[in-house]
């Protein structure tokens, strides 16, 4: 268990003694990474739909007789209103129309139904954590799955790698958290110190050098403690704070340079209005102007316990934003598209039956969207062969049971997109092989990647 290498987890589990224990492992990993397993140019944008998206009204299992007005009096979407997905079984929510060019014309959008994990937690917070750190059931894990992908394949000590990942968010997404902090910001333009350029530079300061051993400015204030330097007892967060300060100092300029000129998306790429669209636009700008590899952002509001609405209600509006976002990214990043994956995650699906508040409650599996130049478009896990009528209630008579473990979806992305090998996959997703061995079916690859 110790080689799970979670710096925080280790500290928490074993107290300060554990702190010492983790150090050799960290050290070891850094050396490994320095040799460079993979420095490919593959990139990824991930979008977390916070709150639990209702997969049943996203990709509609029309062929299931239980999808009807009796079970969903106000949410039911009639056949004539929904979008045809071409397999004679599944339909898409009408508001997904903007992403249909990616699905129909480009054939590069995979809609993967019934994704979840065993012993599904119906707690938002646990389940979001499980998805992001990749170890379902472990509530104490504090290190993200995508952080591990990066730290295992790149030398994060090398300054040229200090901006290989970022969250376009006011806080760091857990999937990217780890001992080497990556930047997080809502808008690249605001990622700067105040004052004129000279004062900002003075405030930022610099590390001590041989010629001038006293460090300066903020970089100086966040330097690591040399032996005996501080009277403080080192604690759980001493290094995290120092590393964050250093990461800030090291990336401010890079992000400002990227945001210096106003960003104009490619003509025809229209991002949705509002915060989500703005974040996507930031992400596209960073993909074009920096060497960032993984970007994460959130879209909230999916916890539709009440007044979820039909085509034009709250849920429909969110799906509309999401679909327009995919369309805009696809049009805007045409040059980068071949090496890019855009993927969604959500902590769980929702009850197949509507509740009394015209909404749905927490349930089990839901839908993932994966798009990119290397994606084989189509509907997965929602066709006449794999979906029996009544499957809507296949779990405990209330929920839609999972067919695919989310780790298998990411497994395919790690292996086929990022080029990891199996041994690396077990490091990025600890316990992968074990879980696969215990229950192979949900881990069977869907082959949505070319």
């Amino acid at each position, binding site marked *: 268990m110790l080689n799970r290498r979670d710096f925080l987890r280790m500290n*928490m589990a074993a*107290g*300060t003694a554990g*702190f*010492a224990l983790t*150090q050799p492992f*960290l050290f070891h990993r*850094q050396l490994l990474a320095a040799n460079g397993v993979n420095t490919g140019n593959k990139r990824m944008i991930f979008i977390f739909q*916070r709150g639990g998206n209702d997969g049943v009204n996203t990709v509609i299992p029309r062929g299931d007789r239980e999808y009807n007005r009796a079970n969903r009096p106000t949410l039911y979407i009639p056949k004539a209103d929904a979008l045809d997905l071409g397999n004679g079984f599944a339909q898409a929510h009408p508001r997904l129309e903007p992403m249909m060019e990616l699905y129909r014309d480009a054939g590069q959008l995979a809609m993967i139904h019934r994704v979840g994990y065993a012993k599904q937690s*119906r*707690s*938002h*917070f646990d389940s979001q954590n499980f998805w992001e750190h990749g170890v379902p059931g472990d509530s*104490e894990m*504090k290190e993200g799955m995508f952080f591990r992908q990066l730290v295992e394949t790149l030398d994060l000590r090398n300054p040229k790698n200090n901006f290989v990942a970022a*969250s376009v968010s*006011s*806080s*760091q997404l857990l999937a990217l*958290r780890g001992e080497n*902090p990556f*930047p*997080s*910001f*809502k808008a690249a333009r605001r*990622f700067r110190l*105040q004052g*004129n350029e*000279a004062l900002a530079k*003075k405030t930022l*300061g610099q590390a*001590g050098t041989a010629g001038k051993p*006293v460090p300066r*400015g903020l970089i*100086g*204030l966040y330097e*690591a403690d040399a032996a005996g*330097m*501080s*009277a*403080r*007892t080192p*604690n*759980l*967060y001493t290094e*995290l*704070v*120092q590393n*964050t*300060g*250093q990461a800030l100092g090291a990336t401010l300029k890079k992000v400002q340079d990227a945001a210096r000129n106003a960003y104009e998306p490619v003509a025809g790429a229209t991002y949705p209005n509002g915060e989500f669209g703005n974040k996507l636009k930031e992400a596209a700008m960073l993909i074009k102007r920096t060497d960032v590899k993984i970007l994460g952002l959130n879209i909230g509001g999916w916890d539709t*316990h*009440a007044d979820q609405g039909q085509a034009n209600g709250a849920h429909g509006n969110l799906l509309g934003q999401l679909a327009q976002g995919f369309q805009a990214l696809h049009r805007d990043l045409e040059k980068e598209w071949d090496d890019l994956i855009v993927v969604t995650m959500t902590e769980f699906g929702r009850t197949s039956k509507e*509740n*009394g*508040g015209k*909404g749905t*409650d*927490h349930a089990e599996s839901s839908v993932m969207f994966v798009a990119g130049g290397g994606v084989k478009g189509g509907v997965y896990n929602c066709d006449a062969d794999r979906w029996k009528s009544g499957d809507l209630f296949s779990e*405990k008579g209330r929920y839609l049971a999972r067919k695919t473990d989310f780790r298998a979806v990411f497994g395919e992305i790690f292996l086929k997109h990022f080029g990891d090998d199996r041994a690396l996959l077990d490091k990025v997703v600890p316990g992968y092989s074990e879980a696969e061995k215990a229950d192979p079916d949900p881990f069977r690859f869907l082959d949505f990647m070319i």
Partner: protein
Amino acid sequence: MKNLYFVSAGLLGAFCLSLSVAEERARSLTEDQKIGHVLNRLAYGPSLGDVSRVREMGIAAYIEEQLHPERIDESGNRRLQEAMDQRNLDMIPGSAEFLVRQGKHWHYFKGTVEPPREWAQPGFKPTAWPKGPSGFGYGDDDDRTVLEDMQGGEDQRGYLSLYVRTEFDVPDPSVIRNLFLKVAYDDGFVGYLNGHEILRVNLRGNPPRHDQVASSSSGTVERGEHDTFPVKDAARFLVKGRNVLAFQVHNHRIGSSDLTLIPELAHAPDPPARVIEGVRQVQERMHLRGVYSRKQLQAVLGEFWENHFCTDFDKVEDYIDDLPAYERKQTAEGEDRVERQIASEAAGIELQEYEFFYENALGHFGDLLLYSATSPSMLIYLDSVLNLKGEPNENYAREILELYAFGVDNRYTQRDIEELARCFTGWTIRKMASEDQPGFPKSAREPSTEPSLAVANEKVLMDLGPGWKYFKGFREPVRDRQGKPSFAWTKRSFNDRLWLTGRTGFGYGDDDDTTVLRDMQGRYVSLYLRKAVPIDLSLSHEDVVLEIAYDDGYVAYLNGEEIGRSANMLEAGSPPPFDHIVPRNHEVDEGVDVIDLRELASLIKSPPALNTLAFQVHNGSRSSSDLSIRPRIVARNYKPGSIPLTDPLGTWTFRFRPEQHDIGRKTLFKGTEHEIQLPAGRRGRAGVNDAIDVIDAMSKHPSTAEFIVVKLLNKFVSDEISLETYHAKSAPPELLALMDKAIAAWFSTPRPGHIGTVLETILDPVNQESFFWSPRAVGAKIKTPIEFINSSYRALGAEIVAGDLTERMEDMGMDLFRRDDPDGYPELGHEWMDTHNLLERMRFCQDLAVNGNYASGRWSIQSLMRGENLESAEDFVRYFDRLAFQGQLPERRKSVFLDFVNTDDEGYADPLADLKGISRIRRLQQMVGIILSTQEFQFQ
């Protein structure tokens, strides 16, 4: 670039050795370190005043005092009282009677030239002035007398000001105690009573000339405001009988896109009611207490519980906004005005909840839990208001277990959630007259089962029936000399002999009409009717109202004055022409309009005299399939606590609806020693006990004790323990031991879960041996944004000034009272430490240090220099090291500060000693910003 990991690895040896040294130091924390630690955890960081207080009274005594905030006398803390008071608004109290209402007819004069000098005096005769109902203005949708020629532009000259005056009767001025003006205005005005100036806003000049522009001290006025102004002193100008109220209203420029004036006058036996303005003021309250109050622990815990029982202002606001009654009010009174009311009500709901948590912060957890479950904010936030019999909504049932009491998956199952959701069916909210609202716990345990306005009994004074004269709107009933529609037909003197005779209701097409207008469809769109009626206001009933069911729109008149109109006819003109077609349909079953006749007392003749009630009714289209008008006059008594749903002076409160409660049998925690059986058949109000029995049992359940103690330990002691590491016994042994002790304290009181008792065990103020006092606990927690901001203010002795404080909190990711997710803002440090947050913190404290606008704070470095004898940069470094870091700052950090203060903006050497005056002050302030930016200040 220095290699951090080699440094870390190199540190290992020294670090392991230092552990035992640290343990050694445990027993020898200096007094200063202890004081700093206590103020970092029980308070929002050290302030100069609190450090000396603790030093004077002793650490143990200080903690004891903080554990018993009721013993702290804070009546002398005027800074706190005044700052909190400024954030309230005056409202006209519920007992008020109106002397002048919106819609009353006023004489008006357009300010193209100066009006006669005596225009506002009682003796002036405005006979040549035109007349129209208030409000006056143009450009927004709240004006009834629309002044199309006022806005200057290419086509017309326009004018800047408008003069209006009206008369009202006061039978006995000696009984008038409190007088209020309620004015919606845009942009500035002066109000006069019987010729005396009584109120002035955004307008200069004595008297202001007709071409004077409105302006405020902060610059040009941009948008309209709506406020209540207590004008108690003006009551002396009232006379018996006829009085004159007059206003002049001015625009800020002639081309302005709008102008508004809607004045109302009221009096009441009670002083003004106070309400909170909006959520910003509630948010600021948390900072004001956190920075200024001596009851620091109570302030910290108030924030802690509010965040634990997380709710969201925005969802409350949206909920009220979507209520049909408020939507109606918005169309009737204007969106801006009602949205301000809704923002204030939603903020009031959040405030009410926060105040309970603050007041009971050291009391029983069971009270907090029950209060939260029944607080309107939570009932809305997690959809209890939508939890109906037969169709339960699991949202709240899940979260009360997972987030508010037991902790995730801590001895409950999905089945328990489903059973508990059934217990909560029928829980909802209502509004109640504030003075009738019972206190807690009665409000929770014996809730009202009635709606906001419940009629106890009523007497019909004018029912549907005969005696009406009517006129079909083929043309205007009367035109004036210029050929325009006239009000003459609404007056008592009008001769209606030639009109037709009929019985109410009038109309066609929906089978609810007695006088059926078979020729109306396709031929005419309006109907005029009038009747002489006795109205007896001397009845002892609480309300005498005119109730109007209608389709599609109407204007109502009494004795020649307009007394109300449907929301869809606001812009139809005065009076609306006979061929006016109503833009939005209204059906009879969409709700009746109610006009309070007591407020119109000055207009009404008592029996045996008769009053002329008149209506004009308009259709939504010529070909419409139906039209209806059915007026009644009713005297009513209401059940106790009743208040109209949209009354801004009511208080939102818990209500239980027995008819929506699932009375089936329920079992929770089945097969455990804490199993709860709830019998079937709890009818009526007894049904509320299903959920209350479970809530009461929760605070005695070990899962709740564990979860709340873990959260308290995380808040006050250390992040190094969680429910999971407690159960797995993998947390540090000292923390496990403290947790067991605290749980024992939880169960040590007759009623388990007394927070003060649990905290006293955790803090161990007398022996000072618990893990709280370990050097491993000292300075080991990362500040949350509110802790960072409040501790910055306290370190500098800064005042909170109006500004963007709440925006800074939002930028740092902690928008108080507005969290989407019900888990509350995180307590664990790693959640707050990322580049975005760190950058926002640095920007904040550097701005605060130089008194930048962005920080919403003010402090004086000069008075600190004088008060503490600080001269050199070294003096400042020493002072802040001692105050904020207990003298523990490493030398290397201090040299960064001194390097900073002795270099110019370009980074070249420029010793502070060579600087004078403002540049010296500025450089020192900048250095203070750098001191607060250091890594050590992220910790507490």
